[in-house]
């Protein structure tokens, strides 16, 4: 299943936050969205998953989701959004229960996603006791459990320290290499974008518009920390964003 955004725009009262966003998310690709803070990239992601409605344009699903997909558009949130009163298993079973998946079928799915996200041994742990990196692994496992057609990742690594972030990036690359998934990946971290993105959409500051779409052809598993090609792209991205980020930084919050 592909996703297409057709002229998506949004305005709160008189302030236009997003304008005429048109882009394609082809199946099996990771599309990164980068932009200065306040450009509306997280808002755009909420439109894609149907948590908010744009005032203009529409988000279209092209083709039907793969059979067995319980929740075609599935989020991974920046702050994990795990229930602290449930265990690792319980948090994953939460999203299966409503689809009537219980007992052995549920256990099978849970143990599969737990193995894929390197969480084996932590099934019965309350999520409150886990480190941030482990928490985000649980959130990724939970997203995988509903077999999504597109994973909508809202700054999934931004709450983690830089070492944990490296580890999780490797995990995501590993996950994608074994079974390619489709994802829209919002981040402000350009290093993440060049490591994980098949294409990188650069948004401008308010109103957010598509400024440039950079495509990277190097396979994900060959991209390493400090790769000269990636650094070049990262520099290019930064040259696009630098001035806007500076303006965004000196701007008062909500005038």
């Amino acid at each position, binding site marked *: 299943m592909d996703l297409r955004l057709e002229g998506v725009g949004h305005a709160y009262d008189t302030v236009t936050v997003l304008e005429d966003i048109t882009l394609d998310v082809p199946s099996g690709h990771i599309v990164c969205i980068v932009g200065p803070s306040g450009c509306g990239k997280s808002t755009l992601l909420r439109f894609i998953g149907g948590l908010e409605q744009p005032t203009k344009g529409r988000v279209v699903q092209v083709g039907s989701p793969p059979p067995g997909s319980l929740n075609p558009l599935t989020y991974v949130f920046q702050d994990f959004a795990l229930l602290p*009163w449930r265990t690792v298993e319980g948090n994953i079973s939460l999203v299966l229960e409503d689809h009537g998946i219980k007992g052995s079928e549920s256990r099978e799915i849970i143990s599969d996603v737990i193995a894929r996200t390197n969480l084996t041994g932590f099934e019965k742990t309350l999520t409150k006791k886990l480190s941030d990196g482990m928490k985000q692994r649980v959130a990724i496992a939970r997203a995988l459990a509903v077999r999504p057609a597109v994973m909508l990742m809202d700054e999934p690594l931004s709450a983690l320290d830089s070492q944990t972030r490296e580890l999780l990036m490797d995990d995501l690359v590993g996950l994608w290499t074994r079974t390619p998934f489709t994802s829209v990946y919002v981040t402000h971290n350009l290093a993440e974008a060049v490591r994980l993105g098949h294409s990188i959409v650069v948004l401008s500051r308010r109103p957010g518009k598509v400024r440039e779409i950079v495509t990277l052809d190097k396979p994900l598993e060959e991209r390493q920390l400090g790769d000269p090609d990636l650094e070049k792209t990262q520099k290019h991205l930064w040259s696009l964003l630098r001035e806007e980020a500076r303006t965004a930084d000196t701007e008062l919050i909500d005038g």
Partner: protein
Amino acid sequence: MADASLSESNKGTAQTVRFRGGGFAPKPRRWTGIAVFVVLILVLEWGTQSGWISALTLPKPSDVLGTLVELHQSGQFTAHMVPSLTRLAVGGFLGAVAGIGTGILIGLFSYVRSGLVPLIAALFPVPKIALLPLFVIWFGIDEGSKYALIAFGTFTPTVVATYGAVDNVDRTLIRMGQSFGLSRLSIFRKIIKPGAMPGILSGLRISLAIAIILLTAAEMLGAEYGIGAYVLQAGSLYDLDRLFAGVVILSLLGVILNMIIGFLERRLLVWRV
């Protein structure tokens, strides 16, 4: 200079860095609370025995204990406790259930919130005891008016605590539930209810203490049996032994209710370690 060794000039003036952290973190100290009670009672006993505290000011703790034993042996303890506990249980239960229900509705629905929050704010500061005559007319002089008074008094603080607790449930968890396509009922049962539970239970601590206060007040204003009636009788006769015996019972009742809520918290909120 890149060399990391210490500079020559400062040698010979070495001093351990003075510790200035710590503190500001109270920890539970077992038996301290009980020790305070024991010391206080011993001082009172010694003071009243030696005549340093006159018998008109305070009764001897040993006499109060004697009164309690006598109360128990004469069967009067049960005669007073059963109606009191029934009133507390019925009134407190009705008030708490109605309060939690209303609080949840206020927390979830815009119209209920806009309609009821001002009303609750208007009812909260009204001293419920002042309404007892009204309740007597509405619900009769018997148990009805006492149940109503206690229920009403427990209701308002429970409502306020409950909708505050529902408001405090992390919105990102609710968005998460919606994003996974959970039904509204599932979101309520699996996210809002457990998320609001800590706030509701700590609200109940306050509500139930208020219930005990109102129980005593209601019984003082028209009851033959009950701890409140017992205390009132003793008070009007200046029978300090019995007055204090009644007060001890009320205070123990409060401690026991608090322990029950503490037990519930440990059972229901295991995850909050």
